């Protein structure tokens, strides 16, 4: 335990900056707003590094703490504060570090947007919310961070406020997460009631000998985690969330926010490890999401939607890792994924930016010559995502699949391997359609009106990409290449966290045959995609000629939207109609209106008292007097 002033500073700085930027968003010039917002996140990153050094200095089981307030309800002590242990540190460094790069990128990407100030205020606010989440030292703080993150996501998805599809997407995201949060709050409530404390440690102690309740709590919290991390079956909001500006997609909906669920499960590992059922549920949800996301990604036409389904799939791997007990592997894959997925999204942003808002990969093609920078960085990202050695993704994905295999989850391992093959497939397709071969028509002219997604993107046609956009992509791409080196650091660094409650030891080294199998399947995926969508692929022309939204089982992502529409949305609407048209107006409103009419009528009657005649006033006075006197004379 060590009280560190750095902790409150790390959360307060972005929050204060968000408030200041929001207040002066229309007064300060864009240049000042952008650099101030970015600078603050950079300082926050430096502070996080300082905290990292401080934490290292403590060594072993040491954690950094800061308590904001202590109070007591019903004789039980409560506390609200921040904590940094290696696990939170891991997340915090990525949030602030990658966050800084994406802020920097946004300076260029958002240039000219009329709501530039609002954008940076929201983005800073997100950094605050996410730091609060990962530094929570009890369930209360976790929920506070969780809901703040949800609000930040809501504001940023709907950033283009005049765009109806963005409004719909933000509401969808918020409502879906709300469903998850109800489960999560229920789980936390059960834990707090049963073990009489909101601190993690007390609940962790409590669940050790209480597997039945651990299952219940774990599954309920998994509901919230799955919603936030876009896992089956609450993943439906993530593809729509791509309505937000691309830096937002990169930061919230790929690198950091959507991994909050992964973090929560890793943070609460004693609850899950106390219950085999909860563990299996986490792993199954993860593996199925990995497969479903990869399948859906194979049939998307919007570059950002491909990446969105890919995010869902990759977070599925992290859940799988958590579910088989390899929390370190989950944290490792979170790190590498943050690097290569942010690089891919930012790269996609450059492409969209240079094409003046074009997001449809059928209208791209042959961009290799036009955008060499994007070509190389995207290639690095894609290779890391496919998981070819020596790129970062190889190491982390390999650890996860090895852990599944070593723990005896053969079926889930198989699902993961198939998903890995599909990952290779859709990435090759994406890369080939965007950069290789020939475009169907000249991309700048074709379908400009029809297919532009980010209509608010300030002007059209070809743009030069400024260095502030290129530099972060280059850094992230470089990290995607060498990030695998963290494989040496992750387990020793996080070990004290997982040793505290005796997490099971999971071997994350794959046998050679498994490694060969994974790489072989990936190669198969690449080969198949090349045959179909390569520069001379058999399906390429047909794909490029097709128009309209993706269709079919995979294009519609297993019809989840339609299913929810039919079984949730329509019944709720019908119920609302019933209440709104019948029960409320006749029942509740009837009662209320009746009361109101009565009061109004009485108000009119009372006018008699105030007729203006003094004699009547006097009479009232005398009546009152007589009544009081009679009372005092005879009844006191």
């Amino acid at each position, binding site marked *: 335990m060590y009280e560190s002033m750095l902790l409150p500073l790390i959360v307060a700085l972005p929050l204060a900056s968000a408030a200041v930027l929001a207040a002066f968003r229309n007064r300060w010039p864009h240049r000042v707003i952008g650099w101030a917002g970015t600078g603050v996140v950079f300082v926050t990153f430096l502070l996080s590094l300082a905290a990292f050094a401080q934490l290292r200095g403590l060594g072993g089981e040491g954690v950094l703490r800061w308590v904001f307030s202590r109070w007591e309800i019903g004789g039980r002590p409560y506390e609200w504060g921040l904590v940094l242990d290696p696990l939170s540190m891991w997340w915090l460094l990525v949030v602030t570090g990658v966050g800084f790069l994406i802020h920097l990128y946004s300076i260029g990407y958002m240039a000219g947007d009329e709501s530039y100030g609002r954008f940076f205020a929201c983005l800073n606010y997100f950094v605050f919310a996410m730091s609060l989440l990962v530094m929570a030292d009890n369930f209360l703080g976790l929920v506070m961070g969780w809901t703040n993150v949800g609000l930040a996501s809501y504001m940023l998805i709907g950033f283009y406020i005049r765009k109806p599809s963005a409004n719909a997407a933000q509401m969808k995201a918020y409502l879906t997460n709300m469903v998850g949060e109800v489960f999560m709050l229920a789980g936390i409530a059960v834990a707090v009631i049963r073990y009489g404390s909101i601190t993690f440690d007390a609940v962790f102690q409590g669940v050790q000998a209480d597997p039945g309740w651990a299952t219940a709590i774990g599954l309920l919290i998994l509901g919230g985690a799955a919603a936030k991390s876009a896992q089956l079956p609450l993943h439906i909001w993530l593809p729509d969330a791509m309505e937000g500006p691309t830096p937002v997609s990169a930061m919230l909906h790929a690198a950091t926010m959507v991994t909050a669920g992964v973090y929560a499960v890793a943070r609460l590992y004693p609850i899950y490890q106390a219950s085999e059922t909860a563990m299996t549920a986490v792993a199954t949800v993860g593996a199925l999401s990995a497969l479903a996301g990869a399948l859906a990604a194979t049939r998307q036409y919007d570059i950002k939607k491909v990446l969105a389904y890919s995010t869902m799939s990759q977070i599925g791997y992290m859940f799988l890792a958590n579910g088989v007990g390899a929390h370190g592997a989950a944290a490792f894959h979170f790190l590498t994924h943050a690097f290569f997925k942010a690089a891919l999204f930012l790269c996609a942003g450059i492409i969209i930016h240079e094409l003046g808002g074009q997001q449809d990969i059928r209208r791209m093609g042959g961009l290799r010559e036009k955008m060499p920078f994007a070509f190389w960085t995207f290639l690095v990202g894609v290779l890391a995502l496919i998981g070819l050695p020596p790129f970062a993704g190889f190491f982390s994905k390999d650890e996860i699949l090895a852990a599944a295999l070593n723990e005896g989850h053969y079926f889930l391992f198989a699902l993961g391997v198939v998903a890995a093959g599909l990952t290779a497939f859709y990435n090759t397709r994406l890369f080939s359609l965007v950069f290789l071969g020939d475009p169907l028509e000249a991309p700048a002219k074709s379908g400009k009106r029809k297919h532009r997604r980010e209509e608010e993107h300030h002007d059209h046609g070809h743009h030069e990409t400024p260095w502030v956009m290129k530099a972060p992509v280059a850094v992230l791409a470089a990290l995607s290449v060498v990030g695998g080196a963290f494989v040496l650091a992750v387990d020793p660094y996080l070990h004290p966290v997982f040793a505290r409650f005796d997490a099971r030891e999971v071997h994350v080294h794959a046998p050679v045959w498994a490694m060969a199998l994974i790489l072989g399947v990936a190669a198969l995926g690449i080969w198949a995609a090349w045959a179909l969508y390569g520069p001379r692929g058999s399906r390429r022309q047909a794909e490029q000629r097709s128009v309209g939204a993706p269709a079919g089982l995979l294009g519609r992502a297993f019809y989840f939207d339609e299913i929810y529409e039919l079984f949730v949305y329509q019944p709720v609407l019908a119920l609302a109609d019933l209440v709104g048209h019948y029960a409320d107006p006749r029942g509740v409103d009837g009662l209320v209106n009746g009361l109101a009419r009565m009061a109004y009528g009485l108000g009119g009657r009372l006018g008699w008292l*105030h007729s203006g005649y*003094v004699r009547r*006033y*006097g009479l009232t*006075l005398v009546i*009152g*007097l007589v009544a*009081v006197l009679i*009372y005092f004379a005879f009844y*006191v």
Partner: protein
Amino acid sequence: MPNFAENLPVLAPLLALAVGALGVLVLDLVLPARRGYGWWFAVALAGVALAALYTLPLLGGNRTAFGGALVADRFGLFFWLVILAAAGASLLLSLSRSEEDASGYLALLLWAAMGMAVLAAAGNLMVVFLGLEILSLALYVLVAFAPGNRIAWEAALKYFLLGAVAAGFLLFGFALIYGAVGGVGFDQIADYARGTAELPRIYKLGVGLSLTGFAFKLALVPFHVWAPDAYEGAPTPVTAFMSVGTKAAAFAAMARFLVAAVPPQAQTAYLLPLGVLAALSMLVGALAAIRQENLKRILAYSGISHAGYLIMALPGLTEEGLGAGLFYLAGYLCMNMALFAGMVYLRQVGEDGESVASYTGLLYRRPALAGALALALFALAGLPPTVGFTGKFLLALAAIRGEAWLLLGALILATGVSAYVYLRVVAAMARQPEKVRRSAAAEVAAAAAPAAGEGAAALGLPDGLIRGAAGAVLVLAVAGMLLLGVLPGRVLAALTGLLG
């Protein structure tokens, strides 16, 4: 024979007010009105400030003067501060007056404040009556102090007639009590009430009669009939002063009277009629306000309701309860002053400010002002984060502790009804101005025309000063409202300490 010099510190605030009033009148005599006009206000404000300055050193302890006739204990001094604040605020709001006889108006205002202060610090029945008469006589005239306004004159006359009757009740009640007790001091009465096994009927009737007299000044139903007319007719600053000052002074005197005169063993029985009156006041005040179209009249009815709320502090006659009452009064001072200051300000910029209709679209014309007024209306309705909520909450707690379920029920009902009354004004402010642009514009023009006519008169202070003063009162009142609403703990602890 009491030593005058010993009593001077207690007397000094009262003297400051009285002398300030005389000073204004003397200035009127020696300087021509044109030149002395601004000085009148300065002297009057100085009188109030001086009185406040003399009050502060007294806060340290419980002092009495003239053998217990004046009790400058901390309870009374709190009321002095409230009264002085109300007087100061209403003086600032009065800056817009421009008649030649404004000196008389100012003098009467100060004398009324002095009467209230005497009432709040009265240590025996005679001083209660003295204070009451000083304040009443001054207020009768002040209500009529609107040149050429027949409504005001009529209201003043009614107020005077009914007030005279009520004063008769009170005096007769005092006489009966004197007859039974053989003395007029509150100490004597308290000893008598506690020492006598079977209190005579004459004493009980005396208490009943006195209660009706106090109820009249507090405007409790059914002794409230004068209030709506007087509030509507009186000049706005006078209404502001009357609504807070009279209520505070009468509440203080009644609380003292009850603490002394009610025998502890029969507390419930003695306080029951007051509870009934209070419950009636809350409901009638809230219901009757529903149909009013004039904001001043709404505030008159709201004053009736609030008098009822204040009574909730009395059940059990405990320190916590009375502390809640004091807290609510401080809050009520802020809410009312904010609203009246807003009305004066609107009048000054050429708007009507009285009829609810004239508030339509104010949020779009003057967003800051409308926001402040909306906050004050929220406070009156009892919504957080204003003092209205905190105060009502504390009063409800006091009523629960005193097991006054009737009052609690009435409070809940009245709060529900009155929310409509206040929020209707807020709704009017927020209504889109497009629909009513023509009518509002016409009203503005109509209101501006006489204002321009008044501007042609020779007397009067600079427009900016008047607006600035009204704005300052508004800002201070809103700040107080929020401060008391958000951080009630400290203030309340201090107030409860005052009673110890």
